[in-house]
């Protein structure tokens, strides 16, 4: 109930903020061309007037780095307002990273120069939906959302994100790496890391096995030489067997220490590999933003 009240107040404020004769300067920055997008906005919001400018390039890229992003470009926005004689500046940015679509929208008031509304969408496999998302974004700022736009979004988007069961999880990666070093990293799609862990653990394991074999052979040799040493009454043989047995004894102590150190390192590395797989395991790319819940990045207008 409280959430509904906040929503009503929020939308009412927006509605008051954008009167029917509002004029907009639209700055579109898309990494792939969207044919007829300008005309789409004009056609869908015919009670507003839009002008378009693609000359502004790098502005707004570093907004998040500023302590006070809402007022960072106050002077520039006011200049835009005076130059283009508009009430608002609407900045839209679309970027594709692999199969991921990132849409960012910002609305500035040219009278104050401040950022009054902001939206970020970061989704995967959301093809052919950029135009609809832009319509929804502008419609939301003007409180003019049409049902078919929402239905189009609902037909694509998963509406219950809390019910999403992830095919790959950090725990799955950790358990796989605990089973076979590097498997969890490979499962997370990090082939380089997987290879490095596998090679490291394999090398340590081989070094341990080699040390153990040396320990085992020197132990057996020590026992054999000591037996021969005890069994002879020939002075020269006694001396020779003793020398051999002493060398074997020193070797078996050294290889024992080495084998224990390598075993400890291998086990520690194995567990670290599993922890690494968990820490860098597959997780959602970003949070899932639900419509209607204000985000902390949205400045109060």
């Amino acid at each position, binding site marked *: 109930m409280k959430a509904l009240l906040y929503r009503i107040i929020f939308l009412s404020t927006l509605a008051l903020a954008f009167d029917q004769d509002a004029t907009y300067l639209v700055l579109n920055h898309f990494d792939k061309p969207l044919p007829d997008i300008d005309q789409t906005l004009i056609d869908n919001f015919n009670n507003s007037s839009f002008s378009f400018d693609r000359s502004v390039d790098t502005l707004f890229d570093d907004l998040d780095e500023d302590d006070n992003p809402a007022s960072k470009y106050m002077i520039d926005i006011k200049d835009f307002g005076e130059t283009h004689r508009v009430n608002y500046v609407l900045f839209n940015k679309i970027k594709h990273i692999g199969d991921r679509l990132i849409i960012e929208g910002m609305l500035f008031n040219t009278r104050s120069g401040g950022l009054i509304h902001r939206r970020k969408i970061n989704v995967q496999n959301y093809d052919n939906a950029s135009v609809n998302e832009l319509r929804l974004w502008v419609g939301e700022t003007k409180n003019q959302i049409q049902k078919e736009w929402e239905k189009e979004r609902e037909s694509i988007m998963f509406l219950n994100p809390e019910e999403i069961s992830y095919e790959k999880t950090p725990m799955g990666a950790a*358990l796989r790496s*605990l*089973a*076979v070093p590097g498997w969890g990293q490979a499962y997370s799609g990090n082939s380089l890391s997987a290879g490095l862990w596998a090679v490291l653990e394999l090398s340590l*394991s081989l070094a*341990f*096995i080699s*040390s*153990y074999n040396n*320990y*085992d052979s020197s*132990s057996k040799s*020590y*026992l054999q030489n*000591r037996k021969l*040493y*005890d069994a*002879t*009454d*020939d*002075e020269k043989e*006694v*001396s020779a067997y*003793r020398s051999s*047995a*002493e060398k074997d*004894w020193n070797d*078996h*102590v050294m*290889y*024992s220490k080495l*084998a*224990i150190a390598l*075993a400890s390192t*291998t*086990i520690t590395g*194995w567990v670290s590999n599993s922890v690494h797989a968990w820490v860098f395991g597959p997780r959602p790319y970003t949070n899932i933003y639900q419509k209607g819940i204000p985000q902390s990045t949205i400045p109060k207008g």
Partner: protein
Amino acid sequence: MRILSGVIVSSFAVLTLCACTIYDKIFDNPIDFKANEDIGIDAPTLVFYPKSQTLIQTDSILVGSFIVFKEDSTEPFSGLHLKIEFPNDLIELDTILPGQFITDTSQSTPLFTYTYDDGNSVDIYAYFLGTTKLDIDGTGHLADLVFSPLATGSDSINYDMSECTFIDHQDQEINIEGIRGAEIIIE
């Protein structure tokens, strides 16, 4: 795969535990002057080999008598007298044979004799009387003593150090610094 992993980790643990075993560094052959020094007996030393033996009543007991020198400080000797004491209630003397150290010198055969009066000790004498070989030096086998068991039990054979003598070809006595006995167990 997890079973395989468990097997691998368990194998690691078992091998690591095995690798923790450090054997005791024990060298105690009476012929080894270093082993004798480790237990506080200096060379030259009169010893028996083996230092201990366990037998049954029907067995013969063969005990070798040895002189052990440090390898870098041997002294040549030409004559010796050994007085060996043994428990005559447990074993009886059967045979005494000269050791290889004395007899394998093909150039001269020493005088080797012993006196035994049915008591608990035997005196052994050996002398080099030749002109081509006056003496021998180093660690070596002096005599073999063969005993027969009389009863079951355990006791030891020992040298009487005060009576044992080694001399060089100029009749100068060579000091014996220590002795080691031998243990006999008859079951």
